[in-house]
């Protein structure tokens, strides 16, 4: 007679538990993504995926590698801290293939007033105009103001 009565009952329970554990471990291996938990309770590879997205704005450093003349003109004027793509828009495609993709010509009449049209919420010391009353007779801004160095008579066209 065995030491424990009806011990095969216990064995069945143990087997069922072992099987359950095995299924859990196997399922977990397949369901939890590989990099999960590397830095915390999230998928570490998500960071690399987000970081791999291509850039759309090239950055002024990239522009300045070619457009040295514009940069020089700009540093002397009031627009020195304005980055190229603030007015010219995203130009990473142009930077990748300068020959094939040309930035569109800008319309200064609509572009300049975005910043310089008078608005009560703008800082008082920021140069502002009322476009309709501005002494320009409907001419585009660049007739008098060179956009890269906007003080009248300050910059020759590059």
């Amino acid at each position: 007679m065995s030491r424990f009565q009806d011990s095969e009952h216990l064995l069945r329970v143990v087997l069922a538990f072992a099987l359950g554990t095995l299924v859990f471990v196997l399922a977990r291996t397949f369901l939890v993504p590989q990099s999960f938990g590397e830095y915390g309770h999230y998928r570490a590879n998500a960071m690399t995926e987000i970081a791999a997205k291509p850039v759309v704005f090239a950055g002024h450093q990239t522009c300045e590698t070619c457009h040295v003349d514009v940069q020089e003109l700009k540093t002397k004027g009031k627009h020195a801290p304005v980055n190229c793509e603030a007015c010219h828009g995203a130009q990473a495609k142009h930077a990748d293939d300068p020959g094939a993709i040309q930035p569109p010509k800008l319309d200064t009449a609509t572009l300049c007033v975005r910043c310089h049209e008078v608005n009560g919420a703008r800082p008082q010391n920021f140069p502002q105009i009322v476009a309709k009353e501005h002494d320009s007779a409907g001419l585009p801004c660049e007739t008098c103001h060179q956009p890269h160095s906007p003080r009248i008579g300050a910059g020759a066209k590059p």
Partner: protein
Amino acid sequence: MKIDRRQLLLLLPAAAVAWDAVLAGTPEAAPNYKLTEHWWGMLVDISKCIGCGNCVRACATENDVPEGYFRTWVERYHVSDYDLVNPVVDSPDGGKQGFPPYTETGGKNFFVPKMCNHCAESPCTQVCPVGATFTTPDGVVLVDKEYCIGCRYCIQACPYGCRFLNPKTQTADKCTLCYHRITKGLTTACCEACPTGARQLADLKNPKDPIHAFLKTHTVQVLKPSMATGAKLFYNDLDGSVR
């Protein structure tokens, strides 16, 4: 070499940890970029913001933000002289097309650019039931869109209203602090496009970053400091009426 039962049992957990590391693999990082060497934030100088909407447009272009949704937006505040706690705020199309001129006179008027505060103790990451949103080791709050189930808990949890459900992917979406740019040594799209330098990307772990000198010499605040979110979007010249 002979291993008895006791030694084997002691070795097993170590082997399990080692095997886990093998399974995880090493993610490809941008060259020369070390996660542990950065702690990102941003500085917004209210006194420099002219409300041109360049940041909103640049963000939409850089990050394919759907029309009508915003990862960053600009608010215009009008605070009358006699009611400092109830400002009139407008933000037509998030300030994307600029702001119509004010006809009202009196009181004070100013612009407040807003976006994700990349909180160090972020409420949005704490409520995610699946670990789809998280703070990276370099201090950026991101959303794993492959893992997000679109339950919207995080959108409710954000005290700054910075999250939305992307209608295309049906997952939570928000500012990534242009993680794909800052890991490559570039600044964010909004900072790049800001004509007055009202927005400045700040690396709080870099001792050479001008942010440190700025924080020492200016009265800088964060939004809703009472919520202890550890917000890293610092505002200079912030009016007390801003919510």
